[in-house]
């Protein structure tokens, strides 16, 4: 029986004093090098504008910790998720092991690395080493063999990092094996099972002397130092930056755009130079590891537009380094030299990229900042927008139909105006599509039918309502948006409106999440939420079951932006329809192509996003497609007609289906 004190290993066994000096001097040196690099990045971020991102720090830390330790978001993509999890945990445990060894060796009078503890640590570290190697091999397989599109272009650092990490792990095992062999195979070392096996192999090959150990030990040290030194100067910096980036993420719904402060006094608008990004927006650029999940999910990229969210962030990052590290002046170097207008206009602000990004990078606000520059500073807008902006300016709707006609759709429906009624429990926000789009007017009529059946006390603003401005804001015309928002808020507040019902997810998002920026605080309810409530509280009665199989297309502004996924589905099932899901549904839903103002732009490059989405729906052979957004409805309508399927496949808004079922 050996004494527990003897179940241990002597740290620095067989290491000459000179090597030890190298460990301390070199170790401190490379750590300082990494710290210096991080410090420099912090200095660069500080050149950005102020932005408040610290409220709720405790929840922020908890959220980030969950993402870091459990890989909640990374694991959503299985193979790379498991791969990264293996590397992360393998690395982390080995790092902790290294700290334990350092404490044992360097803290005076502390001695705890022996006995059961020693055995457990030995076992854990060997398992961790194996897990790490498995993870690295998975990564190498992906990069060398599988080569998915989203990882292109591959940079030299991508493989270098993997090889370096592999070298650290392998030489670690070899050092352990050589030590066990040179120490004559102490029995308890079987807990270091990988090392033990290697020791046997070394013995067979005759390489079991102390010199072998010393050699591997030295190589292991060099590899480890190289790795640490490289952290600050490669994408390895994400080990530090990305968790911090998650801590300071935007906790609001996706795509809430901030106003331009003091618009009437400001001299420049949007992103003229990179320092006009906030410190967090700059940090975002460093947090990107080029994993390409954003690109894989992006509807613009998938239909051959020049936009890849990954490349956009990388180009901005290169530009940041040009300007803020190498100090080029703005005349020589603007972001727009590297990022063509077509890239900037291609985005539908669907937030698929943001939903995917494991680093919680915020793409939409950056694109909107760049569009602001093009729209407001340069007037460099796609030709067709010229008229659409004027329409909004002159008639408060994108179609440019006379503003005096805004309430025409309601003629004969006996809907009270708020100006006549004074107050109502709910204000029905009609929206431009409800007021002017012939197809969508039917949805509004259906909604009115439901509200009347449920005896809801409601009213509309009539010609006092103006476009909510969603698309103008997202196309960068903050000035027009601001005018719409100010005027709408003034009218809404004049009547003391408390609760607003919308059918349009864009109006919903804008009124709910953005009008508070202008003093408009309302409870905003989307019609799918409201109808579910009416059905479940028994306020409306279904007189018949609808027949058929429908698929539901998630509107980005309802789903990803505001988390309303289940309400429309519950409604479909309640009215008797059977629901078939497209492969890309809920948070993975593929945009219809109309968000972010794309509704008003021609789609000249690549294939059409709405055709692609329509094909995904048609692949299910459904009897019908249900939507809950006027833009989605229009995009599907166009696509179905183009594919000659408009007769075969029904296209309905949720409200129309419910109205049909209660008739």
């Amino acid at each position: 029986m050996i004494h527990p004190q003897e179940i241990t290993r002597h740290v620095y066994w067989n290491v000459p004093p000179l090597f030890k000096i190298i460990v301390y001097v070199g170790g401190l040196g490379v750590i300082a090098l990494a710290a210096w690099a991080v410090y420099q990045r912090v200095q660069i971020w500080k050149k950005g504008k102020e932005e408040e991102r610290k409220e709720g720090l405790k929840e922020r830390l908890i959220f980030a910790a969950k993402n870091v330790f459990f890989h909640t978001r990374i694991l959503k993509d299985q193979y790379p998720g498991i791969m990264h999890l293996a590397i992360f945990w393998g690395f982390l445990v080995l790092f902790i092991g290294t700290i334990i060894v350092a404490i044992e060796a360097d803290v005076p009078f502390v001695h705890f690395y022996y006995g059961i503890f020693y055995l457990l640590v030995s076992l854990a570290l060997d398992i961790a080493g194996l897990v790490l190697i498995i993870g690295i091999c998975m990564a190498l397989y992906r990069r060398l063999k599988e080569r998915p599109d989203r990882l292109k272009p591959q940079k030299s650092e991508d493989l270098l990092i993997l090889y370096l990490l592999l070298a650290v792990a392998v030489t670690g095992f070899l050092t352990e094996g050589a030590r066990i062999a040179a120490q004559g195979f102490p029995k308890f070392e079987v807990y270091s099972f990988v090392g033990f096996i290697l020791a046997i192999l070394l013995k067979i090959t005759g390489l079991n002397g102390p010199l072998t150990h010393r050699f591997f030990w030295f190589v292991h040290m060099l590899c480890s130092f190289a790795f640490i030194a490289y952290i600050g100067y490669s994408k390895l910096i994400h080990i530090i930056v990305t968790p911090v980036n998650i801590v300071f993420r935007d906790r609001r719904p996706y795509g809430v755009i901030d106003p331009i402060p003091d618009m009437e006094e400001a001299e420049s608008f949007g992103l003229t130079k990179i320092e006009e990004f906030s410190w967090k927006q700059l940090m975002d650029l460093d947090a990107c590891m080029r994993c390409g999940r954003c690109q894989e999910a992006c509807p613009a990229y998938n239909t051959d537009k020049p936009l890849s969210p990954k490349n956009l962030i990388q180009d901005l990052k290169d530009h940041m380094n040009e300007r803020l590290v190498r100090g080029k002046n703005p005349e020589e170097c603007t972001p727009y030299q590297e990022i063509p207008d077509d890239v900037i206009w291609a985005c539908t602000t669907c937030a698929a990229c943001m939903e995917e990004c494991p680093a919680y990078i915020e793409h939409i606000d950056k694109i909107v900042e760049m569009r602001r520059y093009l729209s407001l500073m340069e007037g460099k807008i796609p030709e067709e927008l010229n008229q659409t902006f004027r329409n909004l300016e002159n008639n408060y709707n994108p179609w440019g139909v006379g503003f005096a006609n805004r309430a025409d759709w309601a003629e004969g429906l006996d809907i009270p105006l708020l100006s006549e009624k004074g107050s109502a429990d709910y204000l029905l926000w009609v929206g431009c599509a409800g007021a002017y789009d012939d197809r969508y007017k039917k949805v509004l009529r259906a909604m009115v039918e439901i509200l009347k059946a449920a005896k809801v006390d409601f009213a509309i603003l009539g010609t006092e309502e103006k476009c909510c401005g969603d698309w103008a804001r997202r196309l960068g015309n903050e000035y027009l948006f601001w005018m719409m928002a100010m005027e709408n808020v003034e009218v809404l507040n004049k009547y003391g409106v408390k609760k607003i019902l919308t059918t349009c997810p864009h109006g919903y998002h804008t009124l709910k999440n953005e009008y508070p920026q202008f003093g408009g605080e309302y409870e905003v309810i989307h019609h799918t939420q409201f109808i579910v409530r009416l059905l479940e509280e028994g306020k409306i009665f279904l007189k018949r079951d609808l027949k058929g199989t429908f698929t539901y297309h998630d509107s980005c502004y309802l789903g990803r932006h505001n988390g309303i996924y289940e309400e429309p589905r519950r409604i479909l099932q309640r009215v008797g329809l059977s629901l078939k899901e497209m492969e890309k549904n809920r948070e993975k839903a593929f945009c219809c192509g109309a968000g972010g103002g794309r509704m008003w732009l021609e789609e000249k490059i690549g294939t059409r996003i709405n055709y692609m989405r329509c094909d995904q729906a048609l692949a299910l052979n459904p009897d019908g497609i249900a939507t809950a957004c006027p833009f989605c409805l229009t995009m599907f309508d166009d696509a179905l007609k183009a594919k000659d399927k408009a007769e075969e496949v029904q296209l309905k808004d949720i409200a129309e289906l419910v109205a049909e079922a209660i008739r």
Partner: protein
Amino acid sequence: MKVVVFCKSVPDTETRVRLKDNRLDKSEIKYILNPYDEYAVEEAVRMKEGGKAEEVIAISMGPERAKEALRSALAIGADRGILIKDDALDGSDTYVTAKVLVKALEKDGLEYGMLLFGQQAIDGDTWHVPGQVAEMLGLPQTGSIIKLEVDPDGGKAVANRMVEGGEEVHEMALPCVVTCRKGLNEPRYPSLPNIMKAKKKPIQEYSVSDLGFSAEDVGKAGALTEVLSYALPPQKEAGKKVEGEPEEVAQALLQYLKEEIKVI
């Protein structure tokens, strides 16, 4: 060379036109810069940007709201504005308008090289004023142009105008009058800094008496024409569909043309 652009504040094209007391009901109207004038402003600003004009002056006669139209011109890039505003001008016809505009140019002491107009104003649609102004000033003029080349040093301008089956090319000595239409250029969407700057650009205001007129010279009193009444165009009726065998259809159609429309 200085270029003057004549601007008019008109109801938006989508206005629901309604009549009240034999006049246009102005209660629900959004006013804009006459779209044809935008081509003129854009062309003048391009001349300035191309180094062919040193100053662009936007001029308008109208009520207070005409300032908004001038601001739109200033946002596109005109340098300053002139507004002739007076209650006495109410009811003026095109003759009075031209007379007043000419007097205002004189009063301002402008040494203009070119006068640009929109070919028509989308409200009154008379097409009168440019010709009247040219006539009163004794200047050469051409209209509805789609291309303009100006040579200030050579003292001439060459303008292309669409005519049936082709284009006419007119060469004129400066100063001259030109009216603009769609196809000449694509008016820009003004940048926000320019919209903001436009708010600070000067607009010189003149009243009728500033120009040396009395109330009898202008408005209804000074007008040569009089509007007797306004009427909305008749509502379009739904089309008629004739169905059946070819012979029957032909018969029915003939009968319809003979008896109801009485064209045969």
